[in-house]
C-alpha cells in the first residue's frame, strides 16, 4: 500500500485536469478579492507540466523526478504569487522524495516539505487568508493519521479533507497577506483562491491513490 511514481504521474495528470475544469471558478474567486488571474495562472502552469511530461522520451522513474519537473515548470510558467509558492513547495517536496516508494511517513514528509517551502518563500502563517490555511491543517491531519497508523492513501485523504475545511475556513477571514490584504475588511466573505486550488491539488492526490490502488 505504498505510493510510487505511477501515483505521482497520475497525481499530476488529475491535478491538471481538475485545474482546467475549475479554471473559471478559481479566476472568479481571484477576481473578487484579487486580480482575477489565479485560474489562468495555474492552468497555464499545469498545461505546461503536462506538455513537458508528454514530450519526454522516457517517463521519469522516480517520484522526486516528477515533482522536480512540476516545480521548475510551475516556477517558469505561472508567474504571480502562486508560481514561486507552488514551485518552491514542489521543489522542497522533491527533495524528500528521492526514494522508490512512499509509506505513510513519506507522505507526511512530502506534505511538510511543501508547506515549509511555501512559508519560507511567502512568510505567511495560518489565519492570514492564504494557501497556508489549507496546507497547515492538511499537514496536521496527515501527521495525526500517520501517527494513528493509517496507510498512505488514508493519510492523503485526511490531508485533503482538512485542506478542504481549511479552504472553507478562509471565507470569513480578513486577509493580511497577498493581494487580498489591500482590501482590508472587504476581503472577508470570500474564499481565498490559493486555498481553493490547494484543495484541488490534494484532492487529486487522493484520487490518484485510489485509482491506482
Amino acid at each position, binding site marked *: 500500500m505504498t505510493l510510487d511514481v505511477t501515483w505521482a504521474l497520475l497525481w499530476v495528470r488529475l491535478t491538471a485536469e481538475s485545474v482546467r475544469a475549475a479554471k473559471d471558478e478559481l479566476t472568479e474567486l481571484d*477576481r473578487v478579492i484579487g486580480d482575477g*488571474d489565479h485560474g489562468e495562472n495555474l492552468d497555464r502552469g499545469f498545461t505546461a507540466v503536462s506538455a513537458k511530461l508528454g514530450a519526454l522520451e522516457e517517463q521519469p522513474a522516480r517520484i522526486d523526478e516528477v515533482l522536480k519537473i512540476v516545480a521548475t515548470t510551475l516556477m517558469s510558467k505561472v508567474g504571480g504569487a502562486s508560481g514561486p509558492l507552488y514551485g518552491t513547495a514542489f521543489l522542497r517536496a522533491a527533495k524528500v522524495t528521492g526514494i522508490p516508494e512512499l509509506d505513510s511517513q513519506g507522505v507526511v514528509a512530502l506534505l511538510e516539505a511543501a508547506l515549509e517551502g511555501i512559508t519560507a518563500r511567502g512568510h505567511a502563517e495560518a489565519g492570514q487568508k492564504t494557501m497556508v490555511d489549507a496546507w497547515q491543517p492538511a499537514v496536521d491531519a496527515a501527521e495525526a493519521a500517520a501517527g494513528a497508523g493509517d496507510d498512505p492513501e488514508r493519510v492523503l485523504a485526511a490531508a485533503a479533507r482538512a485542506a478542504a475545511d481549511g479552504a472553507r475556513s478562509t471565507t470569513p477571514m480578513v486577509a493580511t497577506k497577498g*493581494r487580498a490584504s489591500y482590501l482590508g475588511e*472587504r476581503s472577508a466573505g470570500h474564499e481565498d483562491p490559493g486555498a481553493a486550488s490547494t484543495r484541488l491539488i490534494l484532492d487529486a492526490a487522493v484520487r490518484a491513490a485510489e485509482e491506482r490502488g
Partner: protein
Amino acid sequence: MKKLINDPQDVVEETLQGFAAAHADLVEVSLDPAFVRRAGGAVAGKVGLVSGGGSGHEPLHAGFVGRGMLDAAVPGAVFTSPTPDQVAPAFEAADSGAGVLAIVKNYTGDVLNFETAVELAEAEDRRVLSVVVNDDVAVEDSLYTAGRRGVAGTLAVEKIAGAAAERGDDLDAVADVARRVVANVRSMGVALSACTVPHVGRPSFDLADDEIEIGIGIHGEPGRHKVPMASADEITDQLLAPVVEDLSLADGEDVLLFVNGIGGTPLSELYVVYRRARSVLEAQGVRVTRSLVGSYVTSLEMQGASVTVLRLDPELTTLWDAPVHTAALRW
C-alpha cells in the same frame, strides 16, 4: 467585453510585436522568453536597469526602455508578474559588467519572482541589487497588509535612477538614488470604472453609477472604500491629502506633481485634476517645480486617475531633467 484584441491568450505577444515594429530604433524584443531590451544592447560601463511586472499597465514598463531610463523590461501575462526565466535573461541582456539594478513594484508575486531571478543571476556571478517601490498610500504599510503597493511613482524611480546610471554612477550609487526616490514619492488613485482582464471577460469589480472606488491599485482590484461620486475638486482633495500627509510636506519645499491617467480617462480630465492638486499644494506653500500629466501607469481601460507627489531636491531635479529617449517619455 469589447476590446481591440484577437485571442485573449495572444494579447501580450501581439502587443510586443506591434511595439517592436513601431519602435525598432529604440528596442529589440525577445518573444520567448518575453522581454524588451534597448536596441544595441547593454551600454559598456553603465549600470543596467531592469524593471517588469504584469502587462496591462502600458506604457509601463516597455515604453520606458531607452536612453536615460531602462535597459530592459519584462512583461508578464496581464496583471501577472513575469517568471524568473523571463527576468533572468533580461538581467543578462542589461548587464555590461557594471551590475544590474532591478526595480520591483511591491506585490507578492513580483517580489517573489524577481527574488528567484536574482538567485539565478547570482548563481552566475552577476551582481544584481533590487529596489522595491511602494508609493501607494492607500494601503497601510503594516502587519495587516502585504505592504504598500508600487504604483505610478515607479515612473519617477525609473526615470531618475535611469539618469543616475546614464551619468555613470556605480551600482550602489544608482540603488541609493532609486531608494531616495522611493522614500520621497507617494501616490493615491481613484477608479470611476472597473477594467476587464481579457481572459476573464467581465469587469474586475462592480460599481454603481453613482459610486467610485478610492484607493485603488493598478490590477483592477477594488479600492479601500467606495464613496459616492463627487466633483473633480473633491476627489482630488481626497487623493492629495493622504499623499501630502504621508510625505509630511513642509512650507517651501519643491515637488514634482504627476497626475496619471489609469487608462480610459481623457487627458482633459487629468488637467482638471492637476489644476486642483496644484492649487491646493501651492496654497500650502509647496512649490510645484516639475509636472507630468498623462496616462503612463495604467490598468487597461479603467477610468480614473492617480496623484503622485515626489519631494525634490536639487539633485533629483537635475536627474529628472536629464535627457530621456524612450517610446513613452522623451525630452
